[in-house]
């Protein structure tokens, strides 16, 4: 009986393996202790009472899922800021390096490079503005003490919208940066120095990929939690 309860609880939290295992162990200890403390000699009845006293495992899982979502939200908010700061440093470093080695773009490509440069500047600052808003909104929000999913889901949806827009704009900025790097590479003969812009583009893509993966994970967990919440309400 206890095992079934624990299996339901663990399955409901399967989106976060370490949380599911921790909660299972905590509840197992709790239920076994409650059974041991029960004055009844009928073990089956004692187990039934202990489970009934614990409450619906899906409702408990929903509350824990909201807490886990809040943790993920804060982590993503920090990653967005780190990626933006990293991008800024990378772009500034790259510009300084281009100037130091006097890497020029061939004349016929200069108008296109200038246009891409404008796109990069505007998309980067737009992404920074929206990303900062997402960070502020995601990290400064306090989790409601009653773990109300309906209330939290509104906050979560707004955060997801802000961070999705910031990520999308940042991707445009990175792709433009990649195009500019390609123009620079076609303006000169391949050398060891060519590796620098290639590495820079690779780093940017890695950062963008990390953001997309985290955002996708958050979305999937939010959908899973919504389903869990629905199931616990219909019970």
């Amino acid at each position: 009986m206890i095992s079934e309860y624990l299996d339901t609880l663990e399955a409901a939290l399967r989106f976060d393996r370490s949380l599911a295992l921790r909660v299972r162990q905590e509840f197992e200890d709790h239920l076994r202790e409650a059974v041991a403390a029960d004055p009844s000699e009928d073990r089956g009845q004692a187990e039934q009472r202990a489970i009934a006293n614990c409450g619906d495992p899906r409702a408990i899982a929903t509350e824990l899922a909201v807490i886990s979502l809040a943790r993920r939200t804060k982590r993503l908010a920090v990653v967005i800021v780190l990626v933006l700061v990293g991008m800024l440093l990378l772009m500034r470093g790259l510009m300084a390096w281009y100037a130091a080695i006097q890497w020029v773009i061939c004349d016929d490509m200069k108008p296109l490079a200038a246009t891409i440069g404008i796109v990069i500047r505007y998309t980067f600052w737009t992404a920074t503005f929206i990303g900062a808003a997402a960070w502020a909104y995601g990290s400064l929000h306090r989790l409601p003490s009653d773990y109300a999913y309906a209330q939290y889901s509104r906050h979560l949806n707004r955060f997801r919208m802000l961070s999705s827009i910031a990520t999308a704009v940042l991707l445009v900025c990175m792709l433009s940066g990649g195009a500019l790097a390609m123009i620079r590479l076609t303006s000169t003969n391949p050398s060891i120095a060519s590796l620098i812009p290639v590495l820079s583009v690779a780093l940017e893509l890695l950062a963008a990929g990390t953001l997309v993966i985290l955002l996708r994970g958050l979305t999937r967990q939010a959908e899973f939690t919504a389903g869990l919440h629905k199931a616990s309400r219909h019970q």
Partner: protein
Amino acid sequence: MLKGHLDMIVLAALSAGPAHGYAVIEEIRRKSGQAFDLPEGTIYPALHRLEQAGLLSSRWVVAESGRQRRVYTLTRRGERALTERRAIWRQFCEAMGGVLTSAPRRRRPA
């Protein structure tokens, strides 16, 4: 109503010393004279949330039964938060007491 004050209740229960979930529930029951009989499962989301907020810390220990047990401890931040909440609660009780115990005024005749 009780759920809205759960954080404060849990912090107060842990002010006596480190404890695991079951012991926290027992402490709440004992201190409230069995008046607060929460669904036991609700204590764990509260413990996790308070830990995430930095008001509690936790670690695994091995219980006498040989089972793994998660023990929660109040952090310094948690102690400060409890002190603040106690002060707010006292003010609230005094104000509410004043409102509820004040003598009813007689209506003036029209």
